[in-house]
């Protein structure tokens, strides 16, 4: 499995570790020999291939930036009909752990519905919520939180 992780302020890391344990810890560096690495630059920016999308606090609403990124993601998926994508919903560390698992699922579901409406085959998409358990940035400030409130797309 290849994870294409695009996020701002950090170089993209590809890893075969689906646990996400490498996130933000630097453990992904040097791991996964033989795994293709694709630098996608600023994650979430329109134009990235299957890039992350980001959310406001306690919200699963898709911003216009998120919708643009999802359109890009949909285009890529439709060009690669054999690919399957897992949409991971994530939250920042604030708020209740179990509530955030539910919120993360709503974020993943929101992206899934949007992609299906754009014509992506529903069967190629799956979702999982990690709540606040797998932050991309372990910081305790708004800069970190903004990166952590995301949908992350794992292709295989």
């Amino acid at each position, binding site marked *: 499995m290849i994870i294409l992780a695009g996020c701002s302020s950090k170089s993209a890391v590809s890893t075969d570790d*689906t*646990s996400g344990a490498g996130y933000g810890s630097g453990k992904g560096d040097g791991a996964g020999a033989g795994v293709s690495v694709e630098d996608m630059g600023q994650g979430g920016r329109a134009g990235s291939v299957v890039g992350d999308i980001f959310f406001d606090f*306690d919200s699963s609403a898709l911003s216009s930036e998120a919708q643009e990124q999802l359109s890009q993601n949909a285009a890529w998926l439709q060009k690669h009909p054999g690919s399957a994508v897992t949409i991971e919903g994530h939250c920042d560390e*604030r*708020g*209740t*752990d*179990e*509530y955030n*698992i*539910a*919120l993360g*699922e*709503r974020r993943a579901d929101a992206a899934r519905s949007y992609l299906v409406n754009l014509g992506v085959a529903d069967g190629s998409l799956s979702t*999982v*919520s*990690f*709540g606040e*358990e797998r932050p991309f940035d372990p910081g305790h400030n708004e800069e970190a939180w903004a990166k952590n409130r995301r949908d992350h797309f794992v292709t295989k």
Partner: protein
Amino acid sequence: MRNTRIPFIHIAIALCCILLLPLRLRAEDAAEYIAIRKEGASRIAIVLDKTASDGARQAEWARSLDNTINKGLDFTGLFNLLPAPLNIRNAQGGALNLASIASVGGDIYAGGSVTKKAGKPVLEMHVYDTSGKSLLARAYTGDETQLRAIGLRFCADLVELLTGKRSVFGTKIVFVSNRTGHKEVYTCDFDGENVVQLTNSNSISLTPVISPDGNYIAWTDYTSGRPDLYIKNLATGAKVSVNKHGVCISPAWRPGTNTLVTTLSYQGDQDLYLIRADGTVERRLTKGGGIDVSPSFSPDGSKMAFVSTRQGGPQIFIQDMNSGQARRLTYSGTYNTQPSWSPSGDKILYSSMQKSGEINIFMINADGSRLLQLTSGAGNNEYPSWSPDGSMIVFSSTRDGKRKLYVMNVDGANQKPLLRMAGEQQQPSWSGSK
């Protein structure tokens, strides 16, 4: 999973093995004693005498018992512990001078001796009031390895005698810690002693809760790569999973039953479902309207407090289990979660994210009146859980940096760390003993 079925069974056996031999049990009706407690006194002023002993081994036992009893009584926050006045005895080994305890502000005297009978320690304890009236005279016998259990059994009897209520002694707290690098489920005694790791999933284990009868534990686990619910029989080790599509999170047992309520999303929304201990769905309790999560039951099991986003941000609602009718409980604040219904039935604790971003613990009457803030200015305070006797609250706090567990009295007083343990600790749930 390792070490899983040990703690509850063993504690239960340990407590059962302590023989209670009434010497001359003259304990008066507890209610009568409570009536004579000083009006307005927040704590019971008790003179706790050193346990007398004769012989080196017995002296060792006495030190251990004194340590257990002192720490145990102090932990409750119910007592003002006073050392015995110098003139408590008229002469070495002489009669007690009970009038002297008033001179150091004491209302109650407790003391006794430990002897060796058939190789086993026997703790004989006596409790008097200032008038010299005997309130309790009881002998506790156990193995040498059970000194802590012996001391705590006396503590439990003393609290019940003086307050008319059950105590925290003998109860357990289940919680989550990441000390191994993964979040796993642990238990400890009421006072943070005897930490035991229950899961070894090398995944993410979350929100453990013990069933009211102590036979089952339920928790959420990412072993399969998704948040599934697991229900384990602690006696047999048998484990079932609820792995419905979507999330299976935030379980809470319904009192008086072996059923639990948990959030599932396989039918779309994150709704609450009643689940049997075998993992099958009994019925759906909520439908639509956003997230429904974090259930907590009234002690009679007839009502369920929970978090819902049906009116916008997360707020606490109460639903009648028979009629299905729900009403909103919290109106102050925009992010209210994690309700915990008191064993007495009249109060509900919850955590609230305030405008400052700080999360604090609040207490509100189940009818929505009398809102009280219990924590403030000390990091984020979350996940309140009542002790089974209703006298204390365990919660997590970041007041010292990392998330750790703390306890406090129900009025918010006496806040202190529960245990010293590597890593972070969170999601405590206080459970009764078997």
